[in-house]
């Protein structure tokens, strides 16, 4: 079972949350899950946009008290 990766990018401004998430999933096998926590509102749309560009899928996206929590499923390598 793949270990879930958690990227804490709270208080970091765009594009750092997406950058940190991209670095965290680099080399992970398809089917791995990774979650990013961020306070920058741009992540709500930029993480899905990045995921589409890289072939990953967004599993969940929720916001609680100003913090977004987005979980992606790593896709097959390009």
């Amino acid at each position, binding site marked *: 079972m793949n270990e879930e990766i958690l990227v804490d990018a709270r208080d970091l401004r765009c594009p750092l949350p997406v950058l940190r998430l991209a670095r965290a999933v680099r080399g992970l096998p398809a089917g791995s899950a990774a979650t990013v926590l961020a306070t920058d509102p741009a992540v709500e749309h*930029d993480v899905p*946009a990045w995921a*589409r560009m890289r072939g990953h899928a967004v599993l969940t996206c929720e916001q609680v008290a100003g913090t977004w929590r987005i979980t992606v499923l790593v896709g097959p390598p390009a």
Partner: protein
Amino acid sequence: MLPEARAAWLAALDDGWSDPRRLHREGGTARMLLDGAREAVAELLGVRADEVSFPPDHARTAAAAVLGCALPGAGHVVVSAVEHSAVLHAASWPGPGTGRRRVVEVAVGSEGVVDTSAFVAALTGAGLACLQHGNGEIGTLQPLAPVHAAAAAAGVPLVVDAAASLGQVPLPSAFDVLLGAPRSWGSVPGVGLLVVRRAVRWRAHEPGESSASRPAGEVPGEVDVPAALAAAVSLRTVLAERGGDGAITGSGDADRRHELVSQVRRAAAGIRDVQVHGPAEHRLPHVVTFSVLYLPGDELVRRLDAAGFAVASGSACTADTLRPSHVLAAVGGLSHGNVRLVLPREVSSAAVGRFCSTLPRVVEDLRRELGVVDL
């Protein structure tokens, strides 16, 4: 800024028409000048002079249009997801005594075109609808004709924000209320442009001498007379270069800039991991925006500025609100690393060519420095 606009504005300034004392002392003459500007604009747009007014700026023009038309208790407001923020703010503004209006926002496709059938469906029970003519960020042209026809059948007035499109593409006619931005067509700051057709039930949303009358019941002193004169003169100039009916002529500057924007789009799309937004062909001729994955928009803009190119950005890091462009969000586009170009009328083709050949190097240099080349 168009030389004609600048000349008209300076002439009016020199004649003293920005001096409140002169406006008061010679109020009759000032009103004649203002009426002349209104008549000139009306003739160019194919509307009546008493339907034209000059609010101070685009935000106040949007507020006057939306708050003046959306009478209390008259149903919800329909807007597209890519309307200018001034229109969205006005639509959701509670206003004194009216309570918060319900706003129905209609989604757009990946190129920014509104879902026509969804928009039409939302007109049922609506009191007002807002659909822009062309989008100032991604250039998308909206299907005004079918939407206006449906709105008319439903008895819903349609507000068309043409701030980005007036003077750039053929004039729209499918509107009940029209918003214009003289700055966008090359005039001086100081006035916006509002057209409210006589058939529309409209009333002023803020106190003033004109509150009991049509928008055209304006008072010089409330209106920046030199800016209004400059707007009228420059609108004639930009529409003249397109042919008397506003249609694109084969030799018009719009065609040249449309091709220059296509050049920029191709150059940006040719760089790895760059997303170019908006439609390739059916769009405004003079705007282009693209987003570069992993790069911060503010640093990208700084580097392009250092290379001699004045560009803007829709990224959150460059906005005073620190929120990213709602237009990019609406089309599902990447908002970080965003660069926006607006090509003015006199833009040099050579300069655009230099931009296209400089852009790849600027992107690669910044990628290398940030260590994202293999990400």
